[in-house]
């Protein structure tokens, strides 16, 4: 088990390096001179060349990459062209908002998703089943910006219950969390329902009934424990995708998070900032996968031993 986790960890590092290299190369082959963009239309050739040399952009690409990686290991991701501040500082400030939003969205998605999934499975083909599955289908199929704007219209503009944008108080997180989490809630509800229905057909459920367990005990002690294995994996993946920055939700609700930072980086041709946010997203996804794998190993005794 320790060994396999170590192996996964090394794999994760390799993936991270590979992605970093790819981002690095891609950002340098796209047309357009970033220095020229940064300096504005009126900069003369000399200044641009001096600037390019100062930023090390005239070096061969492998030298640039090596320097970038070494700096990154020390926590230095360069200085944002467009905002003139260290990328690490900008990202740290944005990460707080992204984290708060991700946690709120995950909380909403999982509590609602798991609860609805269980009820739908227990009341299979009943009214609540159809209702919840309808909602989850909506969540899975409606684009986030549409959900976000609908929520804004109904709860902020029309009913005045919640702020329309910004996160000055915790109330500001409610609508973005629902908009961002609805999709995940829908997937979780569907997965919980289908795995639970599958688990309830297993032989060991009959065994539990044969020893005199009632329906609630069977559900909680025998069925859920088994049904949660795949659900946990899905939840770990969702957490990483929520954490890696919700571009649309953050934009619609004016939340200064990683997603919004990435949008600003793209529109400003801000290579260090874009590199930083992309690398961050990769890191979060890789960590999420690592978490999913190790969760499975911790929860499922069959894997725990084999590994």
């Amino acid at each position: 088990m320790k060994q396999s986790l170590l192996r996964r960890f090394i794999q994760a590092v390799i993936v991270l390096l590979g992605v970093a290299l790819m981002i690095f190369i891609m950002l340098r082959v796209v047309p357009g001179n970033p220095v020229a963009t940064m300096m504005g239309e009126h900069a003369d050739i000399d200044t641009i060349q001096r600037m390019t040399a100062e930023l090390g952009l005239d070096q061969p690409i492998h030298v640039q990459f090596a320097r970038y990686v070494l700096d990154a290991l020390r926590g230095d991701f360069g200085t944002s062209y467009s905002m003139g501040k260290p990328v690490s500082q900008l990202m740290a400030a944005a990460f707080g908002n992204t984290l708060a939003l991700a946690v709120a969205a995950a909380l909403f998605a999982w509590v609602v998703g798991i609860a609805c999934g269980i009820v739908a499975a227990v009341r299979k083909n009943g009214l609540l089943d159809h209702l919840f599955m309808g909602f989850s289908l909506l969540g899975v199929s409606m684009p986030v910006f549409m959900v976000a704007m609908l929520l804004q219209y109904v709860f902020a503009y029309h009913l005045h219950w919640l702020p329309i944008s910004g996160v000055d108080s915790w109330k500001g997180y409610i609508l973005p969390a629902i908009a961002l989490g609805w999709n995940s809630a829908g997937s979780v509800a569907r997965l919980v329902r289908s795995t639970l229905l599958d688990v309830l057909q297993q032989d060991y459920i009959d065994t539990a009934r044969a020893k005199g367990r009632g329906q609630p005990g069977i559900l909680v002690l025998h069925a859920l424990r088994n049904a949660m294995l795949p659900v946990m994996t899905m939840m770990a993946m969702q957490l990483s995708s929520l954490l890696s920055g919700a571009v649309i939700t953050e934009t619609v609700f004016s939340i200064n998070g990683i997603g919004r930072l990435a949008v600003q980086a793209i529109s400003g041709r801000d290579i260090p900032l874009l590199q930083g946010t992309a690398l961050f997203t990769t890191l979060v996804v890789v960590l999420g996968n690592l978490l999913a794998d190790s969760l499975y190993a911790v929860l499922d005794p069959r894997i725990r031993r084999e590994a």
Partner: protein
Amino acid sequence: MEPMTLRAVGLCAGIPTQKGEIRAVNDVSIDVPAGSIVGIVGESGCGKSMTARAIMGLMRSPARMTGGEIWLNGRDIARLPERQRRALRGSEMSMIFQEPMTSLNPVMKVGRQVAEAVRLHANVSRQEADRRAVEMFEAVGISDAASRARCYPHQLSGGLRQRVMIAMAMVCRPKLLIADEPTTALDVTVEAQILRLMRNLCDAGTSILLISHNLGVIAQLCDYVYVMYAGRIVEQAGVIKLFDHPAHPYTRGLLNAVSSLRRGGERLDTINGVVPNLLRLPEGCSFSLRCDACEARCAQEMPELREIAPGHKARCHLAEREAWS
């Protein structure tokens, strides 16, 4: 009359479908006297498991019990409310299943799963329940019981898992154990061990209803046998009587198939035809289509389960009353 642990009378169970009800269990009556092993034998799909589940009250929807009485230790339990019925499961009647590989919860330690049965029926501490589970593991012949109790199911062999299942079923000392093909998934040496264990349980006072399609297992273990065909009992007799004087052509067919195997003859004797569709049973005897001795009335009139000798009944128009009875 000897006391009966189980007396099922006129059990009916079926599965409603669009094309009508599948009558998987049809007017089945079974007695299990205290301290004996009673067998049900029949080919796949004849309704053995459904009968067992009906007795346990473990029907899987949409299958349901549609009639009959179930007397357990002198009390009709068929119409008890589910709560009271549940209290009997695991304490007065238990069941073990065919597939030891999938019948245990994969994410729970096996000792815990046995202890769970204890705590459901006795008001004891967790430690006491664990202790009783280990004790039971020893009783069913699991060596190194304390450490095996801390294993997960996948760490145990099929034979050990079936022993765990038996320990779980027996830990509250039920009067009745229903074993649905307990050794079908096991290899022969392990099968022999499990059968010996069941014999020991019976000698210690548990009545056992043993379901099998293996006549060898039935012959080894049972005192009395019911033969099932297409949802009905077609013959019942003491085990020696059944093997020496089978009265129903179906039983004779089953026995011939086994003995031709044993003789190692050129050709395997088989019963012609296939099991009839339970939705479209023939008007008369269910076996008439496959029966060599079929006569005109067999195709028209369903024979009664008639007593042809003391303790020996057969559902066949042609079964002779035995001369010496």
